[in-house]
């Protein structure tokens, strides 16, 4: 590094030496950067991949004496990380990274969604290094990711707006499901490979997942509407100890309950099936009368997302 002391006290050769050291240091930083890029692009080990992504997401490539004119945004490394992690889990073909050479940035598209959406990460500016995975067409934030705090949070509002409302009449539900399955696979990898804490929200298929409504005080008229709508489709909304229950198939049951899984008072849903493959999201795609019911009173029924990050 250049000497902080008064420059006039240095000899010419002293100045040259410290300049040279500073350049070397800058080049070393560059070399460290390319090593990390090598890891990020080539490693087959998820742990090494995560390390590289974490380091690059906060990497300062430029130094006082060495700057690099072509650089990606820090958030772009998250995209590479995501694509690579999915690739390591044999889902690489379902996702495409696009490099935009003009202003040097990356976007990602899910092949299931075609041209409908293009995703990129943006900084959440929450001082803990969190990022938002956003659709560039609608600016909807699909999930929040924080590599340092090892958490991922899906955003029910965006999932509903994009996958239930916006895309629903543009592509078939098989494609919608393969797109969300890919996002779920990414969250699942974070969970199993690194032990992340992931909230899948309305995409969660486990039976004990409590999908909490936004309203804490569900008006009985809203349940009445479901009762009438279900009856006209030959489903009976039944009385239940803790609310109401709707048997959609002999194996798939939807429950409206006034207590969450820890027993605390809250209104919300449970979706139960023996294989634990069905989520509230899948039900919304499959049953128009439930979709109408949900969207009609979305202000109350919207599934709660982690309000610390959304």
């Amino acid at each position: 590094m250049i000497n902080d002391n008064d420059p006039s006290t240095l000899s010419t050769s002293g100045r040259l030496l410290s300049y040279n050291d500073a350049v070397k240091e800058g080049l070393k930083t560059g070399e460290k950067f390319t090593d990390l890029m090598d890891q990020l692009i080539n490693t087959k080990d998820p742990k090494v991949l995560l390390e590289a992504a974490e380091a690059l997401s906060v990497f300062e490539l430029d130094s006082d004496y060495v700057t690099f004119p072509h650089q990606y945004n820090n958030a772009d490394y998250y995209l590479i990380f995501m694509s690579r992690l999915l690739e390591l889990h044999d889902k690489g073909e379902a996702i495409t990274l696009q490099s935009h050479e003009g202003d040097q940035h990356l976007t990602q598209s899910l092949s299931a969604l075609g041209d409908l959406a293009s995703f990129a990460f943006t900084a959440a500016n929450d001082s803990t290094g969190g990022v938002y995975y956003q659709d560039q067409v609608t600016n909807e934030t699909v999930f929040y990711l924080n590599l340092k705090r090892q958490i991922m949070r899906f955003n029910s509002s965006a999932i509903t707006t994009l996958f239930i409302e916006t895309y629903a009449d543009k592509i078939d539900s098989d494609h919608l499901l393969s797109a969300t399955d890919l996002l779920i696979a990414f969250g699942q990898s974070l969970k199993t490979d690194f032990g992340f804490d992931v909230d899948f929200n309305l995409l969660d298929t486990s039976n004990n997942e409590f999908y909490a409504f936004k309203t804490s005080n569900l008006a009985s008229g809203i349940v009445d509407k479901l009762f009438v709508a279900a009856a006209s489709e030959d489903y009976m909304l039944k009385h239940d100890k803790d609310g109401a229950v709707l048997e959609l198939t002999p194996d798939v049951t939807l429950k409206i309950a006034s207590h969450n899984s820890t027993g605390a008072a809250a209104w919300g849903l449970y979706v139960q099936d023996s294989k634990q493959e069905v989520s509230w999201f899948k039900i919304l795609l499959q049953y128009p009368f439930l979709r109408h019911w949900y969207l009609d009173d979305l202000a109350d029924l919207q599934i709660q997302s982690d309000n610390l990050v959304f």
Partner: protein
Amino acid sequence: MQNNNEESNQELTPGQAQLDSSITQKINYLQTLQDALHDRDDRQIYELIDNTRYAREIKKSRSTTQTQNLADLVADDHPQLSHYLSQNLIEYLGKTYPFFYYDEVQDGEFDIYFGNWWDRRLFGQLDVLNVAFKFDETEYNKLKRTFELDSANQRYNTENIAQITAKSAELQKLIDQQDERDHQKESLRDQLKEISQRSTLPWDSGKVKEERQTIVDQLSKLADDDEAAINANKQIKENDEQILTLSKEDTILTYEKQSIQKSFEDFSHFESHNLSLYADYLNNLIGKGQVKTDD
């Protein structure tokens, strides 16, 4: 107590004898009741708590009995008796009336719920000691009416809903015609202006006044419509809520009707079953008792 008169132990006065027999009768009554309870002989208990009815409906005898007042001995035990007797009775009712659900709100007091669907109705009470349903009259009559309307392919609230729907359609029309009304108002105002600017001959003034009044009336009618249109959205929303309440009631009544049809085919069978419930149940208990003795 000191025994001063030894003879009194041996010979009872008529009054004492009557008292003695009365007490014996009570002891026997209570003893039989207790034995029946221990033997879980519900039939015997029913006979003991309402001897007259039992004689009339089961034994088909007209013998008047003096033991009815004995039943008063256990009057304050009725809640517990009812609680005890409910176990077998409810199990029995479950076969014939699978759509009724019972909630013991107090010892021996049972509310009847119709069905297991959302917001099922509280349909009345179960009188265990008298083996009878005490249906809520209003709810019962709605169901009866539902059956009557069924032949005309109508639901209980079909007409009501149609009326409200028509009202909402009118209101929607008022909202939709706002532009049209605005145009009309504009043209009417222009006409007014034109009339006031017209130089009128004296003998025409009556005719002009009339013309003017017609326009003013039209304008005021349009203003009323505008006013109504402003409140229309709120009114439509209220109508929607009302329709929801009525549709819900129709759905519930349909489920009730279907439940009855499934078990009794029609409402009259249901009603006649209810009337003979006491006899049917007691005879069923007698049948069971025989099976037990046969074993």
